[in-house]
């Protein structure tokens, strides 16, 4: 399309403004974490790194971070296993209800988090509580894994669709049994799809707040829940600022990993 010069300039300006609007709030969070003033007044009277040190020593924030990491890893592990199993079933077999299964996988992320949250909450209350299992880490992991399955499923299905069956057939002709074929041939071919799916699943879990609110008991606090609870407390404001800024900085890591993954393999992961 031959765009006129004014049209190009207009588009460039619009895109510039768009990117500025996307990044300015994030930059303000970074700047806010250095604000000398305790109540984060604007413009900042001066800059300091003291709050970063204070946040590092904050027990609550550290415990919440650790809880988030553990919940994320456990949910990712469950999602990797279940998502891969469903992906194989849906992609390699035709059976009654195949469409329904792929729909059921997407449902937990398509429905509003609060609906999933209260559904799981009341189910846990009626089923698990009589068994002596209260709301806690276990229920958080169950809740997170439920909506993480879909991202692993999507990545593995996309990879399986492109995978020629000939490698596996060759291995079987050479005498490898079903498990050997999976371990030696299929799994290495799926590796980057599994990594991409796992990365996305962890990020989803790490960022989740709604389902967490309804599945975590009073004792379990993930990092987003901690931020939410401390956001309105004036004396915690500087630490919340630092935690938010640290999360903005950390978001560079998955982007870097995703780029590495997609440049490793043709077609890449769907991150």
């Amino acid at each position, binding site marked *: *399309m*031959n765009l*006129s010069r004014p049209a*190009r300039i207009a*588009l*460039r300006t*619009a*895109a510039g403004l*768009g*990117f500025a*609007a*996307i990044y300015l*709030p*994030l930059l*303000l*969070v970074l700047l*806010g974490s250095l604000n000398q003033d305790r109540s984060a007044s*604007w413009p900042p009277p001066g800059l300091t790194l003291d709050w970063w040190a204070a946040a590092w020593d904050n027990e609550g924030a550290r415990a919440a971070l650790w809880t988030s990491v553990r919940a994320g890893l456990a949910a990712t592990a469950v999602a990797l296993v*279940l998502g891969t*199993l469903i992906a*194989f079933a849906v992609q390699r*077999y035709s059976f009654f209800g195949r469409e329904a*299964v792929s729909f059921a*996988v997407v*449902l*937990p992320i*398509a*429905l*509003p*988090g*609060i*609906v999933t949250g*209260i*559904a*799981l*909450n*009341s*189910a846990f209350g*009626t089923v698990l509580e009589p068994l002596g299992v209260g709301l806690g880490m276990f229920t958080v992991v*169950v809740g997170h*894994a*439920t909506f993480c*399955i879909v991202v692993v499923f999507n990545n593995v299905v996309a990879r399986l669709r492109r995978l020629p069956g000939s490698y596996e*057939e060759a291995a*079987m002709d050479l*005498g*490898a049994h*079903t*498990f*050997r074929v999976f371990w030696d041939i299929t799994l290495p071919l799926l590796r980057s799809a599994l990594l991409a799916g796992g990365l996305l699943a962890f990020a989803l879990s790490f*960022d989740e*707040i709604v389902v967490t609110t*309804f599945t975590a008991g009073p004792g379990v606090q993930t990092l*987003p829940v901690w931020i939410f609870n401390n*956001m309105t407390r004036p004396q915690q404001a500087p630490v919340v600022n630092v935690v*938010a800024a640290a*999360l*903005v900085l950390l*978001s560079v890591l998955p*982007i870097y990993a995703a780029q590495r993954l997609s440049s490793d393999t043709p077609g890449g992961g769907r991150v």
Partner: protein
Amino acid sequence: MTALSPGLSPESATRAAGPGRSAVRRLAGSLHRRPRLRLAALLTAPLLWLVLAYLGSLAALFLSAFWSTDTFTSEVVRIWTSQNFEELVGSPVYRTVALRTIGVALAVTALCAVIAFPLAFYTARVAHPQRRPLFVVAMLMPLWAGYLVKVYAWRLILSEGGPLDWALRPLGLSGPGYGLTATVLVLTYLWLPYMVLPIHTALAQLPDSLLHASADLGARTWRTFVSVVLPLVWPAVAAGSVFTFSLSLGDYITVQIVGGKTQLIGNLVYSNVTLNLPLAAALGTVPVAVIVVYLLAVRRSGALRSL
């Protein structure tokens, strides 16, 4: 393919020795001969999880929407009644909140589309081809920065005497403060990447030949845009709108943080969960029903196939 001669590869011949190995081999063989058994082995665990744990609790929740709550004890009374839905339709408060929620979701979707289009057009067709992957990363990056972090950023920006007020003061203006406008603004910011990415992909995949053909046939830029580009990119807009619409519809955290006194349907669900679960469940059916209707409407545009 079914004929497995175990001796073909020397490595597998040595590994096959020993009783443990042969048991694995027997299991593998019997699985190999029975595809239905393999399928059952693959599906049992995930279906137990998704159907029993998830769909089961969803069904129980929607069933409980037809129960009621004892007003004195807050205990759920398990007698079949449509009282909750009658209250939902009859009460002007719930109607207003439901309509406001749908309005917010539509406004956020429209704003996202209007902002995303020029942005995606620039990154997909105007920017230097070598820089385009970098722009894609730049669009993806805010997605990873965390939902709550971004809402928190806006809470600071919109606060009284905060950066926005400070920037607008020389112009004699002030920011919108916390409220409905702030909610729409922040939700637009949150879900914008979900709209930009599909539009960018669709625009990047647009074949040049079509644009050249349109120009050869005498169409000017604007005509080409309306008659060629827009119809081809429309499904991507619809696909992005599924995210922006349904994510806005169920949100209640953003409203709590920057919405002031504004209430959306999610807040009503949240505030009823502990005291009146049946009513909360009935309220929860509203966004689900709206999303299903929206998905059915969007499916006609063929957008779901490109998701």
